[in-house]
């Protein structure tokens, strides 16, 4: 478990760093795939099978392919390179490290176990083991599906997600219309 976690975590982080420092767009896309794919691996380890598969299918297989298409369609030369001045990168990197340190210092101080116990009591659940037990780990498909239909057998006081599920489809439709409009060529004449 820990070995797999280390591998995936390192791949995700190093991939992300490589995205930042690589100069070629296509390589950025490649490292992004490495990073997001390893993140999907992390999701598998965190018992979120469905999210991991969705990440692979939608993010890596869909969104990133779209991005790579964008890279190819907007490339002026054979391999699109982008120059970033080293000074800028260093400054941005330092600020980034500072921020990383801040986030980590804040987050690592939190007593997560205590928080969890309190919150579970607040949610109306007695034992922390009730939600994710070892036997059903990773089998989040049914509870997730039910949650998206608005029923929460896993924790009765939690909200149902029927509305976001449905309204997101309207959003996708609208966005599709917008993207199609922007991408298509203007028709000449009224076509009659």
């Amino acid at each position, binding site marked *: *478990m*820990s070995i797999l976690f280390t591998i995936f975590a390192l791949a995700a982080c190093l991939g992300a760093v490589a995205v*930042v420092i690589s100069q070629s767009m296509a390589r950025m896309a490649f490292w992004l795939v490495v990073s997001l794919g390893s993140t999907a691996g992390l999701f598998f380890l965190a018992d979120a099978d469905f999210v991991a598969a969705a990440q692979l299918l939608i993010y890596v297989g869909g969104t990133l392919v779209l991005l790579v298409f964008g890279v190819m369609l907007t490339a002026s030369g054979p391999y699109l390179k982008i120059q970033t001045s080293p000074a800028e990168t260093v400054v941005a990197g330092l600020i980034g490290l500072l921020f990383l340190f801040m986030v980590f210092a804040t987050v690592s101080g939190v007593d*997560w176990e205590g928080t969890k116990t309190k919150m579970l009591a607040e949610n109306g659940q007695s034992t922390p083991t009730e*939600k994710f037990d070892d036997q059903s780990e990773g089998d989040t498909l049914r509870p997730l599906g039910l949650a998206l239909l608005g029923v929460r057998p896993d924790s009765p006081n939690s909200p149902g997600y029927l509305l976001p599920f449905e309204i997101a489809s309207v959003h996708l439709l609208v966005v599709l219309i917008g993207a199609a409009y922007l991408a298509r060529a203007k028709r000449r004449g009224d076509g009659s």
Partner: protein
Amino acid sequence: MQPDLTSYLLVGAVLFVCGVVCMATKRNGIGVLMGVELVLNGANVNFVAFSKYTALGLDGQVFSLFVIVLAAAEAAVALAIALNFYNNHLTIDVDRANKLKG
């Protein structure tokens, strides 16, 4: 590294910071979008980790599912806009986008 909440959050934070730095330093519009994807992914790692280790439970996974879907939608529009920009300017360099100054 034992997989616990803090190490997950560390991975999420690294992804987030890399994304922000990527957004700040890249000149290429699509490069910036890749930075955005990293940021969203950092948030997703957080959500999934919270869903395993805190009282957020399944809600965290639902959040991350919606984030994936919305990120795809956003990327589609962003890419269409980037292509449109390229068709008009024959470049995708954000710094060349300087017609609008006041």
